[in-house]
């Protein structure tokens, strides 16, 4: 912010009526804004800090010091243990097994649930048929039903389908429970696209699937990112379904985490627990850190409207 020389001179000479000077970086307003943000950031970062610091301390240090003090001696032991050798019952291979299970669960569940929900949203937004809204309303109300309520009926349904305890079953469960919110998201997004595009494509002779794959899909990156983030974190973090609808060989990482954290052998090994916690949270955290910006944009594009 540079004043013209003439203006500066005029000011000095006192010719100019006194006007308020331009804002500086350190104005009261900025101090308030950044101050508040900083305080909030501390609240949000504190737990992460505690997790990280604790996970690299040795047990003696944890017992003696307080949780906020930085480690005197850094050890990666807890991480190694959490990943590879923490025990649950007889299995002492830490989280490593659960990690791959989680991947095997999350990838197909995310893909399939997004695919189905986006097609639903597309059909609801562009190909409304009689009664479609009834189903949609049921679905949305379903978003509020506590999972526990649905647990038993789903057990029965899966049993009748003969896929209880299989990965397929779990993928279906994730698809079902992801459906309400994702469908809403996609419906709102597709509805916010100009309907002329859809009309133009129909005149061009494209059918339901051609319009979906060739017109709508390529235009919908932001909302797919939002859906992807929601599903990856949701499914990765899921504990209940992972434990209820699968067998131990498919247990996801969260179940392993729960086992490690709850299998107390003498004293709680907080450092191992924290390392395990961080390892379990790593995937969704990375997803967030990498695509957080798209997330906000996608939310703005689809979720908030309608």
């Amino acid at each position, binding site marked *: 912010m540079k004043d013209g020389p003439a203006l500066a001179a005029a000011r000095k000479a006192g010719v100019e009526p006194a006007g308020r000077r331009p804002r500086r970086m350190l104005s009261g307003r900025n101090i308030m*804004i950044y101050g*508040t*943000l900083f305080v*909030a*950031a501390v*609240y*949000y970062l504190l*737990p*992460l800090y*505690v997790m990280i610091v*604790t996970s690299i301390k040795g047990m003696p240090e944890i017992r003696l010091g*307080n*949780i906020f003090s930085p480690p005197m001696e850094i050890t990666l032991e807890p991480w190694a243990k959490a990943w590879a050798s923490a025990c649950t019952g007889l299995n002492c291979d830490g989280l490593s097994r659960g990690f791959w299970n989680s991947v095997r669960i999350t990838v197909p569940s995310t893909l399939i649930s997004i695919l*189905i929900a986006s*097609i*639903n949203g*597309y*059909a*609801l937004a562009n*190909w409304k*048929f*009689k009664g479609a809204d009834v*189903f*949609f309303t*049921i679905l949305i*109300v*379903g978003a*509020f*039903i*506590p*999972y*526990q*309520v649905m*647990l*038993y*009926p789903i057990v029965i*349904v899966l049993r009748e389908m003969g896929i209880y305890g299989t990965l397929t079953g779990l993928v279906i469960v994730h698809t*079902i429970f992801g*459906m309400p919110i994702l469908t809403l998201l996609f419906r709102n997004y597709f509805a916010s696209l100009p309907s002329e595009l859809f009309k133009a494509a129909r005149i061009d002779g494209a*059918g*339901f699937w051609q319009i979906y794959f060739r017109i709508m899909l390529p235009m919908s990156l932001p909302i797919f990112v939002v859906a992807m983030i929601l599903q990856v974190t949701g499914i990765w*973090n899921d504990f*209940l379904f992972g434990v209820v609808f699968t067998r131990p060989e498919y247990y996801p990482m969260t179940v392993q*985490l729960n086992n490690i*954290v709850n299998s107390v052998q003498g004293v709680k090994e907080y450092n191992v*627990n*924290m390392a395990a916690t961080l390892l379990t949270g790593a995937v969704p*955290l990375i*997803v*967030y*850190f990498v695509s*957080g*910006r798209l*997330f*906000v944009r996608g*939310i*703005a594009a689809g*979720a*908030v*409207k309608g």
Partner: protein
Amino acid sequence: MTSQADAGRPSRLLRNLSAKIASIPMMLTAVVIFLGGTLWTVVYSFTNSKLLPRLSYVGLDQYERLWAAPRWVVSIQNLAIYGFFTLVFSLVMGFVLAALMDQKIRFENTFRTIFLYPFALSFIVTGLVWQWILNPEFGIQSVVRSLGFTGFTFDPLYDSDIVIYGILIAGLWQGTGLVMCLLLAGLRGIDEDIWKAARVDGIPVWRTYLFIVIPMMRPVFITTLVIIASGIVRVYDLVVAQTSGGPGIASEVPAKYVYDYMFQAQNLGQGFAASTMMLVTVAIIIVPWAYLEFGGRRRG
């Protein structure tokens, strides 16, 4: 409509066939799982099913027992307190943060990531971490005491009277980021000219927010409210991870009651009755919302 016009008319059922076929998963989910499952649950809440569902009706017995159970009453109270404060604080905090983020600040991405990352963590993880930070023996209390304030007491998770607020702290930490994101998106959607007009009119910033911007963001607030509310009704993992409902039954919540009675107590009937009551709660939330969202719009 002449008969001639109808001649070439294809059957109603066949029209939009692809769309209907594509919607089959949705229809099945809606009808079989959500509607069917709910009805099934409601029906069995009138039975005395134990470990396995059995159709032996006992009328309203399960409900009578439910409302006579101190634990259920505590659960409902807790849900009300937790729900109320979660709504208030996450909306207020979320909005304040969103408003600050909307000031064309530097490091916006950094701040946003900081506020949002807890949302990536499961409630299990959130619960664990906060249980630890709030643990009086080595958490905040001990740290403050070691600084010389030996009289300092802050052990929300071990004090029946305030334990629910301990859970609230963790819940807010996890969820406010998303609220902020939603509201930020809403704020960004406000026509910039409105801000300019308000400035020209000499309306102070806080008044502009309070009387102009917030009322304009009603739809966003409603969406946000619904998202928060649906999370509140379901709160379970957080409590389990932080306190397991303790001390005693001080931090019990309805979802946990349902789970415990269905599976631990092997009394499905009681669990179903409790979950039916939760559904009623949901209905109380959702009906006014649907009215505001759809009923209101149609009139407008």
